[in-house]
């Protein structure tokens, strides 16, 4: 297993240790706002364990993915504000 993987967040490359959840990569890339709520509020991770759905982002064109439960894989593309 490689030690680091590179993923793309909103078009920018981010290098993180292998095994890092997408949510952490997004936070490390400086985004505290993962999505906009239905009334337009900024939102980010709440529970850290897969139950609140606040950390949803788009991963590899799949909308509404829980970023805290999905590990970064080489070349993954992530978009916040799914």
């Amino acid at each position, binding site marked *: 297993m490689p030690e680091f993987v590179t993923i793309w967040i909103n078009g920018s490359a981010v290098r993180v240790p292998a095994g890092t959840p997408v949510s952490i990569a997004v*936070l490390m890339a400086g985004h505290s706002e993962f999505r906009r*709520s239905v009334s337009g509020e900024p939102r980010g991770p709440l*529970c850290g*364990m897969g139950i609140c759905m606040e950390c949803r982002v788009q991963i590899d064109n799949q909308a509404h993915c829980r970023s805290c439960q999905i590990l970064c894989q080489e070349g993954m593309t992530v978009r916040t504000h799914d």
Partner: protein
Amino acid sequence: MIEQRYRTDILVVGAGPAGVAAAFRAAESGARVLVVDDNPQCGGQIWRADSKKALDKDATKWLDRIRDSSVKFLGGLKVFDRPEPGVMRAEGFDQVVACRFEKLILATGARERFLPFPGWTLPNVTGSGGLQALVKAGLPIEGKRIVVAGSGPLLLAVAGYLKERGAKIQIIAEQTRRFDLVKLGLRLLKCPKKLQQAFDLKMKLQGIPYLTNCWPVSASGRNAVESVTLQQGPKEWAVSCDYLACGFHLLPNTELAELLGCRIEKGSVWVDEFQETSVQGLYCVGESCGVGGLELALVEGEVAGWAATNLKEKARERFSERRKWRGFAAGLNRAFELRRELKKLPTPETFICRCEDVPFSRLQSEHSWRSAKLQTRCGMGPCQGRVCGPATEFLFGWKTESVRPPVFPVRLGSFVPSSAGDAPAES
């Protein structure tokens, strides 16, 4: 989407301490055991893999045991449906799994309870265990100012952990009264191991104010939280921070058990002395049948692992230990019961349902969870009421209703088995 099929004697859902102990004991007797967890790795909440720090002895012992046993672990899979008796379906990011089993052990653990107050939806307002989970997964926290708030022993554990990782804990705000904690402390004297843990923590937290009878009344900030207003008695003051880690003790995850028709009592899955639920052949262990901490989760897991493989005598040997930890858990849960004053935290504009942004004012005219759901969409979003359900139960006394598949949101296609023939059976 790839579909994998498995066949096993015993399926364990949840790989926290309870599930791990159950799986290990069941496998000892030669049964084929498969453990499935939504988390990528084994360990559940307390033994969550840590990117920086080695796990403690207990954790290492159990996780090594599992690794060296015949137990098969599948991570990154949320179990969402039981399409027919004896089969569960689970979905991962790029796969679907169908598992046929003889017996099922649910070890789905607990989650934090979140209570709404103005500003609780801001980014960087997280659960207390929630922030710990993020940091364990690699979120850098050195030098960050953190307010830890809410209720329960988890606040101390989290503050201790975050401090160790270089965070500046501004304050710990515990809602319960000091009096209730003292009563709990007296109980701790009877449990030397717990006393030791509490003592260690106290040391670690030296220099951090630990306030009881204290809670956040609001959080504010532009794009993320910048300041928290705390209240203690008549006093109210603001504390600046980078994170507010706030959770109000824990709640059993009972959704899967409910889907399977298990009796639920006082918010927990009901079990008999062998941890069997009201549904035959279906066991439940750990915090899904009552919040009680690590030791209780382990004992319950062992009891079920043995009972499910017909080693009832061995299971019995653990009953007295289990009784001890259950007594301790009861005291703990009493000590951290929620104060009625917390019902006053939301203002009319505060969103109660974060998925659908339903404000408090919209809910005040509703009379039940069902009418609130139908008329305001509260609880109709992707968290399926996991966050707002317990909040409205506390605020309004509403009971949530029956659980239907999917237990977690899943891709539509995941409901349907791929037409390809059975994959080779695995153990």
